[in-house]
């Protein structure tokens, strides 16, 4: 427990530093928050525009699509606040320049520090309204879900975070062997966006890919379906199982990557 509270304190300190760093350019800070909120608002209009013309996307109604959309953004903001940029963009640069050396000598877990070193408070302030939006979607759904469904939803959201952590860590770890993993991270960013749509939109080969090979259904669709009670219990087990496998693979891969680190710098 001491270890946990120590890392919690460190995490809170990193948040404080992150806030101080980002508040240095205040107009930029507030403009970014405005930009992210505008993006979310415009995407909401996008879905609204679609449903002005059709009643369903696949089997999904308007309210269900809004739940999927809100859930996706909750997960997306949470990873952006915490580990996403640290692992996908900062870590490859640090490996390339040899800056990782200075993190290796710190008396903290290396994976912890490279994952949470720069917290993104801009996304934190954009995350709060998205929570409000989720509340609005619950209201539209008339809170028609049981406590069990709500707990399953919350657990599957946490599961989505662990799954994405594993995937981003795998991509970032490739940087130990190549200087060009940045492009892979960009591709993943674009793939991630698929998670905001119902996976019913894909057919055949692509459906198999996004359910089994790179199971993006785990991000928002499975949690949303759990809340809507349209998910078979098998899929809940599938979700946790897949995340476990990805996480184990990512951690083993990371360890191998660290052993290959050459500390190349200027």
């Amino acid at each position, binding site marked *: 427990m001491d270890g946990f509270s120590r890392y919690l304190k460190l995490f809170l300190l990193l948040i404080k530093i992150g806030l101080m760093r980002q508040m240095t*350019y205040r*107009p*930029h*800070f*507030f*403009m*970014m928050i*405005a*930009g*992210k909120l*505008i*993006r979310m608002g*415009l*995407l909401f*209009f*996008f879905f609204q*525009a*679609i449903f*002005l*013309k*059709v009643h*369903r*996307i*696949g089997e999904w109604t308007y309210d269900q699509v809004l739940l999927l959309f809100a859930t996706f953004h909750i997960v997306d903001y949470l990873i952006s606040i915490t580990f996403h940029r640290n692992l996908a963009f900062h870590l490859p640069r640090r490996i390339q320049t040899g800056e990782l050396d200075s993190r290796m000598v710190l008396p903290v877990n290396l994976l912890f520090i490279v994952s949470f070193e720069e917290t993104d408070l801009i996304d934190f302030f954009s995350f709060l309204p998205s929570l409000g939006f989720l509340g609005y979607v619950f209201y539209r759904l008339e809170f028609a879900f049981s406590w069990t469904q709500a707990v399953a939803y919350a657990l599957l959201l946490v599961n989505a975070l662990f799954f994405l952590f594993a995937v981003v860590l795998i991509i970032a770890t490739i940087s130990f062997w*190549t200087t*060009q993993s*940045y*492009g*892979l991270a*960009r*591709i993943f*960013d*674009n*793939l991630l*966006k*698929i998670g905001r*749509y119902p996976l*019913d*939109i*894909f*057919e055949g080969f*692509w459906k198999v890919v996004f359910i089994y090979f790179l199971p993006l259904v785990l991000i928002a669709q499975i949690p949303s379906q759990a809340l809507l009670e349209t998910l078979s219990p098998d899929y809940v087990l599938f979700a946790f199982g897949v995340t476990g496998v990805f996480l184990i693979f990512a951690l083993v891969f990371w360890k191998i990557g660290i052993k290959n680190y050459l500390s190349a710098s200027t």
Partner: protein
Amino acid sequence: MTKFWSVFKLVWIERLVYRVNFFLEILSGILSSLIVVFLWVAIYRGATREVIGGYSIGEMVTYLLGAGLIYSFILTTAENPETSQSIQDGTLSTLLLQPISPYAIWFVRDLGSKAFFFILGLSGYVVVFFFFRQYLVLSASLGHLLFFLLSMILAALLQFFLFEALSLLAFWVENTYGIRFTVRVIMEVVGGAIIPLSFFPQILQKLFLLLPFSYLIYLPMRIYLGKIPLDEVPLEFLKEGVWIVGLALLNMMIWKKGIRQYVAMGD
């Protein structure tokens, strides 16, 4: 002219240094538009009508692929961040000593970058076009096709002047990324990159058409699909031209004011 050509070529050489990243960037752009296409194909298959919002499934797929191509490889491959960075880190000082105006260098570099990404992005899109060949719609007429090509060039110019005006604000503010990010976000939706603007409620449509963004994607794709009669296209170009000239003049004004107070901070 040789000097400008050298700058243009230099951009291509720079871009080819990190070939893997460049290839992945192309792939990434293609994926982005594919996602939206898949969504619409599913919507049309589940719909009771063949035409939604004035677009058949073929027109919609063509619209989205064309919009994706323009957005990914013309509108987001701009060099405007370079302007901001040069002003902020002081490298503008070196550019000022060169025999071409820094503004001209940024302009030529931007066009070079756009041409590079568009030509190579288009070659990547050939696979996508083949994949969706049963849906693709040919341009309404040869005249529409020629006007479509011209409208893309105008869109490239409009995008440059719009974002360059924001980048030049670096003479006064320390970080212009926030404002550029916000405008880019607006450009994606209000420009028509993910959905034709005719799908939005009337009041939003009217508002969006008052802004310059609709000339970037929505207008070129409407021209290609023949949604605008040929004789009405020149009037649209005239309106777009007013925006381009207006923004170019604004750029000149900001540049002249900004350069007077440039303090050459940095190394």
